[in-house]
């Protein structure tokens, strides 16, 4: 139980996927303009992560033992199908949410945080339960980083930023400061 808690916390804050592993930066900069969209995208990504973790575990245990060189190919195909599946379910179950997410839903396929999750899970040899907890932590961490960034940017819209720095450069500097704040978690749980 204790181990699971540390896996969760580790992925959530200590080794935050976005701010210390640089995974999922495209949506991190692309979709962090508004807090509400950012939060919803984070939740959808977390959901895909959990499905991917289960699928990656099943593949690793039953199929890839014989064909290790197919790992990357099969992971990417599984992720693409998972996203397609989620898209269909969301469309059927909640058309309102589907409309709100729009193009960001299919774009989850090329979010490197998802493939990164599957690869890390493999290299650390996590089992099914550990994998799911890891996915929840990583997804939560991604959502947290995205929401923090979105609130900062909403705040920054009202402040007096020099015209030269507006846009990507300013967002990158913001992210740098955010990453420094997250460095404060380093070492948590290692003792």
């Amino acid at each position, binding site marked *: 139980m204790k181990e699971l808690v540390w896996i969760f916390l580790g992925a959530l804050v200590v080794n935050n996927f976005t*701010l*210390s*592993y*640089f*995974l*999922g*930066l*495209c949506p991190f*900069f692309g979709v962090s303009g508004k807090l509400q969209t950012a939060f919803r995208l984070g939740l959808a990504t977390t959901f895909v992560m959990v499905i991917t973790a289960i699928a990656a575990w099943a593949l690793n245990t039953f199929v890839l033992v014989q064909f290790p*060189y197919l790992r*990357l*190919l099969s992971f*990417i*195909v599984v992720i*693409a199908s998972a996203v397609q599946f989620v898209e269909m379910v969301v469309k059927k179950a909640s058309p309102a949410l589907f409309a709100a997410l729009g193009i960001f839903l299919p774009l989850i*396929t*090329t*979010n*490197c945080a998802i*493939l*990164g999750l599957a*690869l*890390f899970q493999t*290299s650390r040899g996590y089992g099914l339960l550990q994998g799911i907890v890891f996915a929840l932590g990583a997804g939560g961490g991604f959502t947290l980083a995205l929401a923090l960034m979105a609130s900062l940017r909403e705040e920054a819209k009202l402040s007096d930023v020099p015209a*030269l*720095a507006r*846009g*990507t*450069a*300013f*967002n*990158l*500097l913001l*992210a*740098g*400061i955010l*990453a*420094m704040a997250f*460095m404060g978690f380093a070492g948590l749980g290692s003792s």
Partner: protein
Amino acid sequence: MNAPSSPAEAARLHAEFVKGLWRENPVFVQVLGMCPTLAVTNSAINALAMGAATTAVLACSSLLVSLLGRFIPAQVRISTYVIVIATFVTVVDFVLQAILPDVHKELGAFLALIVVNCLILGRQEAFASKNPPLAAVLDALGMGLGFLFALLCLGATREVLGNGSLFGIDLFGPAFEPWVVMVLPPGGFLMLGLILLLFSWRLQRRAAAAAEEKR
């Protein structure tokens, strides 16, 4: 692949190659492929290896996609590109593991993550699928080398500031106090932010100079 038949054709191919190096540089101008750009540029040697691996994957995928372009149905083209890219990444992964095991270990999962580098997928969708093989390969090489150049800029600056060395060779002697944050994650964001600031400053000055001339 045929040699360019006329000077105009040769000039066009040259333009396809050169544009990625500076004017449409994938990192500094288009801001694509950010994840590997920031994750592996904590030292110059890692940046070099990552840039070379990405260039190799990009060139091979562009060649294959350009050759297959006509046969790929439009509905499944993205998935086809991803599978082509994943195949070449697997090849590069194994090759690097065989010849440079240390670098392979250092890059870790980020080598496999070349698959989801949006720069590569972007070139397949925007260029390789609509152009003949030679142009596609030249475009890929230009973009890849531009990517490598940007990575090397970031990696070298971060290594010099954060570790006082370049390619592992000590530069300043023991009296140098390294700026450790530069090799840690925040340094990546800050450094790229500063470089982009420099770029927009240059653009602004050039625009101002052009406006001055007009008057």
